[in-house]
């Protein structure tokens, strides 16, 4: 009897050679192996910026004094804030903040300069959209540093005695929407987008490819079934799956993580149809391009990586260079 060796280098080499040969045959897979790291490099190297600047800011002020003007110009000079609007109307300011058109509202009260001169430490209120805390933290830190020193320059002469060792204003920061800085408030709803993209794109990208790989497409094509029927028939079950996933996440967000849910649920569900539909369509497109299931999965990842990196889930939406 011949001795069967537990480990044979020759068998191992045979496996390795076979694997390389197959890799070489599958050009698309090989291209993806090169392209995915390249894409990641480009995204991390160029597209993602960990120190977001020029955040849109509205200034709400009725006090048109030299003091408020120096504050406004100082925050702009810091480069963190970009003044997009100067308002006098409180409700308009709140509206902009709610819509997400501005990230900050700097509130300079009416009697700001008077109180400042009297040494009463007027309140300077910065409302920040903290729904994504990481996005605004650097800017908040910057304003804390510059609020005092800026005014010091103007407080000279007879006002000089207000200066030494004394912060002339009372800077208050209001982180709105997520004042306690709870991570779940940001992560859990974001997860909904991540989960939906991932499952919708990957699963449908396998849909047609699997039929082709297993040979069932051959049979399907000889029946009277029409392409539109095949496509819709493949998509609709996953729309249902998508809604199930969504409901599960919303339920978990409410019950487990106690994330507040503002606004209309109906609107959320109907708008999600667009998102689910688009993700499914992308998956189906990959499905028709890919020759086998491995290629389909790789194409999905090729789509998924930039989409998640740039979506604002992993890095805040503002953490991008504007091209």
């Amino acid at each position, binding site marked *: 009897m011949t001795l069967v060796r537990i480990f044979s280098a020759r068998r191992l080499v045979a496996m390795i050679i076979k694997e390389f040969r197959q890799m070489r045959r599958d050009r698309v897979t090989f291209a993806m192996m090169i392209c995915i790291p390249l894409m990641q490099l480009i995204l991390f190297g160029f597209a993602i910026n960990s120190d977001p600047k020029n955040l849109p800011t509205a200034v709400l002020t009725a006090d048109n004094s030299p003091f408020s003007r120096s504050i406004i110009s100082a925050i702009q000079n810091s480069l963190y804030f970009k003044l997009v609007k100067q308002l006098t109307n409180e409700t308009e300011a709140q509206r902009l903040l709610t819509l997400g058109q501005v990230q900050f509202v700097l509130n300079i009260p009416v009697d700001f300069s008077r109180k400042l001169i009297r040494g009463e430490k007027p309140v300077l209120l910065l409302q920040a959209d903290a729904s994504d805390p990481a996005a605004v933290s650097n800017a908040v830190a910057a304003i804390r540093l510059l609020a005092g020193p800026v005014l010091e320059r103007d407080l000279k002469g007879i006002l000089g005695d207000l200066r030494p060792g004394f912060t002339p204003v009372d800077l208050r920061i209001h982180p709105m929407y997520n004042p306690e800085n709870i991570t779940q408030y940001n992560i859990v709803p974001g997860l909904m987008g991540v989960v939906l993209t991932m499952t919708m794109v990957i699963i449908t990208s396998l849909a047609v490819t699997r039929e082709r790989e*297993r*040979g*069932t*497409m051959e*049979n399907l*094509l*000889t*029946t*009277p079934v029409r392409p539109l029927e095949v496509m819709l028939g493949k998509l609709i079950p996953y729309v249902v799956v998508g809604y199930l996933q969504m409901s599960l996440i919303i339920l978990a967000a409410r019950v487990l993580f106690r994330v507040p849910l503002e606004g209309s649920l109906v609107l959320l569900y109907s708008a999600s149809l667009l998102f689910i539909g688009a993700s499914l369509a992308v998956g189906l497109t990959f499905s028709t391009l890919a020759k086998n299931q491995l290629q389909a999965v790789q194409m999905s990842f090729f789509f998924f990586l930039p989409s998640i990196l740039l979506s604002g889930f992993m890095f805040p939406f503002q953490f991008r260079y504007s091209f």
Partner: protein
Amino acid sequence: MTDESTIIDVQGLVKRFGHKTVVNGVSLKVKRGEIYGFLGPNGSGKTTTIRMLCGLLRPDGGSGVCLGWDIIRESTQIKFQVGYMAQRFSLYEDLTVKENLDFIANLYGIRSRREAVDRAIERIRLERFSNQLAGTLSGGWKQRLALACCMIHQPKLLLLDEPTAGVDPKARREFWEEVHKLAGEGITSMISTHYMDEAERCHRLAYIAYGNLLTSGTAEQVVAGENLTTWLANGGNIHALQERLQGLPAWDQIVPFGNTLHVSGKDAETLEKSITPFMAAGYRWTRTTTSLEEVFISLMSRAGGD
């Protein structure tokens, strides 16, 4: 314009994959209620031809009608009346037998679907397996299920690509009985096969090699057309005989079958001269009718020559 009784009538079908011409000007005519055997060596283009007939592939050349519809422009209409069984198992392995049949029945819009499914299961004796996953069936049962699926909508034409590959002899006989019964009802079948006994069960045959249609007609016509003479030799050491015969002229094939040696050749006279010396040498020689197998091998070796 073709008459009612012609089911398939195609001329000069051509299919190329890249630079390779896989089907090279094949013309076929199949009549209503006929069982048409489609034979040829591996890679000769049988599957490709069948796939062009049922609208899976678009021919690169040629034209024709199938069931009265144009095979290029009206393939949608053809699909309703054709049952195609692919060479490779192409049903859903993760659905049960019943679910597969039900799905196909739905695609064809069959009215009394449940009865149709039950009838199909009964006809091929699949009752035992009706709730088993198709992927877990044995090879032969898979073939039978595929057959049931392609017949569920009562098509007028069956295009069966090696339907009995891997099926046991009894099931094969049942299958052929079924096909003959259907033929009696006016349902036409075109069947590709590598089995000679099945070829003999067909009303007419076509033989294709390397994309070219070499011959067609009834089995007798095909045999007569090749004009081979065949002798059987037995008694004595037939392998030694084979070696010695190979040095002589006029033989085309010398094939041992168990204890008999089959010797055939085109040139009857010279062949007889070649074997005469061995008649005395203890071998018993009988002249026999040439079988389809010898004819096909002869066709194939000639086609490979040019």
